[in-house]
């Protein structure tokens, strides 16, 4: 008998993963995998799936354990050496507040979501990759929580992040985004989170926060960022492989996938509005402007990605031109809103100083001086007169993205954009064409949105008064409001004074 040939790596990996699976006979396959057909996606041959990376569990444990050992050594050293005193300024902590209350809980949702697809996609190849991503996402939640835990010991606005995430009005923006993905079918989840979020938009979320940490002396968070980089690369590879696979499997998948790409691009763009405000206004030391980031990571990188996907018939997401145009505006509009509302948020806001405003003029030559500087100058004047401006009403929210209706018409930055739909005799309001389209496509899903302002009116948020609602949100008295004169500000000044004094002695 001729000696049998030994296997190559690819074949061996196939034996160690897809070879494990079998076609069930004692139970129907459709009962074992009950959720992967209703979305209309047609898969003719799961075995055509190309494993984007070949990681057996023993290697996974080994690599990940090594990374964790290093990361926790840095986290421990950061705490021991009071690394929080070496950040650029206590204003930077606002960035961590936004991250821990708005993003980390979504890492957790991604963990459970990938457990869902890791169990319920019929193909074994993607299932294994999803399970590893599920573990990674749990890692990201937990390491972020451990990293920021040290800041929580000194600064306000971090302590109740979990409860805040479930209740606070602006945090319903990320929460509804991920609830939307989690409640979608397994294929839509993969396009929403695996492709749109982890592939198309990840550089606009992950990089700004982690580079922001690096630029602002937060060695602990940036070490997490470096440590998570290789996980993120794996997630991106999975995201791109999924979309190619779906498009290659059957031509009928294209229109479905295109609608998902349109939807999740727009939803992601709206969610990233929070990041735009962070990048342009909250980082004491700036990495780049939101507009620059959008140009590099979406217009250029995203553009060539979609160019590559053209061969499958996939088009650039609907309203991408509107998004690019809006990048001249959204950070100013949202931070302007936060400035007026910070007393009812868990975040601090402050007036950008002259140097900062000049930077904004330089980065936004078409819009900042023309539309936004005058607003800030007016508020600055009011501050000088001892009348810092706060808005005391309740805002109307977009029914889809749940951001306040603050964005302007695509071709007219002086007019607020309002869109409306009627469904079963009720009226629903939207901030944009993109958000209206999303609702109109699945109204029966979106009518159940837990809209924070409506919930306040219905008496579901602690009571009828602002203090009742803030108590329900579990905001501490020093969590939000004006930064100057805040507890965080005073603490920071006391540290700086102590350091200067020590140095002088």
């Amino acid at each position, binding site marked *: 008998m001729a000696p*049998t040939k*030994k*296997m190559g790596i690819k*074949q*061996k990996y196939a*034996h160690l993963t897809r*070879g*494990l*699976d*079998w076609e*069930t*006979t*004692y*139970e129907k396959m459709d*009962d*074992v995998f*009950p*959720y992967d057909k*209703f979305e209309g996606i047609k898969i003719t041959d799961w075995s055509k799936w190309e494993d984007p990376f070949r990681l057996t*569990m*023993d290697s*996974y*444990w*080994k690599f*990940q*354990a090594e990374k964790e*050992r290093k990361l926790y050594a840095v986290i421990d050293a950061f705490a021991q050496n009071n690394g929080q*005193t070496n950040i650029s300024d206590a204003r930077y902590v606002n960035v961590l507040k936004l991250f821990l209350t708005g993003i980390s809980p979504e890492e*957790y949702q991604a963990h*459970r979501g990938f*457990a869902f697809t890791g*169990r*319920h996609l019929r193909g074994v190849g993607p299932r294994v990759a999803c*399970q590893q991503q599920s*573990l990674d996402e*749990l*890692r990201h939640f*937990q390491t972020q*929580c451990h990293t920021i*835990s040290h800041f*929580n010991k000194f*600064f306000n606005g*971090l*302590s*109740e992040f*979990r409860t805040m*995430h*479930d*209740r606070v009005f602006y945090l319903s923006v990320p929460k509804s985004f991920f*609830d939307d993905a*989690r*409640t*979608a*079918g397994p294929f839509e989840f993969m396009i929403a989170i695996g492709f749109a979020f982890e592939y198309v938009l990840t550089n606009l979320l992950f990089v700004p926060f982690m580079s922001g940490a690096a630029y602002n002396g937060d060695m602990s968070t940036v070490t997490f960022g470096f440590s998570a980089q290789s996980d993120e690369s794996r997630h991106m590879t999975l995201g791109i492989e999924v979309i190619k696979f779906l498009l290659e499997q059957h031509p009928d998948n294209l229109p479905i996938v295109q609608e998902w790409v349109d939807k999740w691009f727009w939803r992601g763009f709206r969610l990233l509005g929070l990041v735009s405000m962070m990048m342009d206004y909250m980082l004491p030391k700036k990495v780049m402007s939101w507009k620059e980031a959008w140009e590099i990571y979406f217009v250029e990188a995203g553009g060539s990605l979609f160019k590559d996907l053209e061969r499958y018939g996939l088009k650039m997401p609907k309203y991408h031109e509107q998004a690019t145009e809006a990048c001249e505006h959204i950070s100013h509009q949202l931070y302007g809103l936060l400035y007026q509302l910070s007393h009812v948020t868990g975040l601090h806001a402050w007036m950008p100083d002259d140097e900062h405003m000049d930077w904004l003029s330089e980065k936004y030559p078409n819009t900042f001086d023309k539309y936004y500087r005058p607003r800030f100058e007016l508020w600055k004047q009011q501050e000088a007169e001892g009348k810092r401006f706060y808005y005391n009403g309740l805002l109307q929210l977009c029914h889809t993205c749940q951001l306040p209706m603050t964005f302007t018409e695509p071709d007219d930055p002086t007019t607020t954009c309002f869109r409306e739909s009627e469904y079963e005799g009720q009226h629903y309001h939207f901030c944009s064409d993109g958000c209206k389209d999303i609702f109109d496509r699945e109204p029966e*899903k979106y009518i*159940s*949105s*837990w809209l924070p302002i409506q*919930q306040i009116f219905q008496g579901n948020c602690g009571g009828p008064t602002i203090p009742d609602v803030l108590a329900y949100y579990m905001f501490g008295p020093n969590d939000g409001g004006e930064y100057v004169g805040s507890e965080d500000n005073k603490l920071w000044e006391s540290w700086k004074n102590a*350091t200067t004094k020590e140095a002088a002695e």
Partner: protein
Amino acid sequence: MTVEIKTMDFEPKRHTFGHVARRIGGDKPASRYQEATLDVQATENFHYRPLWEPEFWHYDTGKTKVVMEDWYKPLDPRQYYYATYNIARANMNQSVERNFTFVEDKNLLGKLSDELKQKLIIGLIPARHVHWGSNMNTSEMCQRGYGTAFTAPCMFSAGDHLGMAQIVSRIGLELDGQTGNGLDKAKDAWMNDKAWQGIRKLVENTLVQRDFFELFVAQVLGINGVILEAIYNGLDDAWGEASLPISMLSEFMNDWQKEEARWSHSTIKIVAAESAENKAIVSAWASDWINRAEDALRTYTAAIAGDENIAKTYADKERVTAKSLGLEI
């Protein structure tokens, strides 16, 4: 004499997060396990009904018949969070590597008779499919379960079962000269040989189980406690001179069983102790799935070891365990 480095004093304002402090009896330093686990999963104000199961929210206590006042009662005595889990498994895997190297260096499997090799391929290697089914079940418990204290360790178990399926596969590759033919044969046995059909049916029955805690009981007391326990420990006589290398190469599985049971048994115990109703429900599930596992195992051990009694021995052992967890069997 002591050496004291002079540092500036920074008095913390608080020691841990609010939701953690409320659970551990006040603001005091919390462990990493606690901060990584307690109250992590969202619990309220969900936005949309799952398209695939609109009768529940995506996080919903109604997905099991047992009722817990608080799903953060069953904590993990191992206190695993992602880092400690991976470090523990990486360490365990170092001995796996050493054992494989030892067995390969001494050619302990290569020198076995073809007959014995075939016996192992047919009798042992299909266990990798049992692990794969278990991986599906534990992923399901994570996605479907309630509360991070319960669901996070389920995902760790999913990783473990995939890892163990791959260890068994590696044993198969040692036996088939790294060709993969043995794995194909083993799969054929899993699908068609009478010996495995009871076990395959049992595993497939669990794959359609929608109550996440019944699934947990079936997995822990049925598949882990009876089937896998017997496969790795009850067949030494059948494996003959291969029993030593096989025990070496399945050391991970035996260590894992003991370690994982610290968590899974304590979880069953706590959930059953919650109320008389829970105790009755969990006891009924335990009896049922241990019985079914015993039936499934009987065909297997009869065919592989020529001994039906092994099944009873292992099932009875698991019944004793179940009783020790407060269940009525």
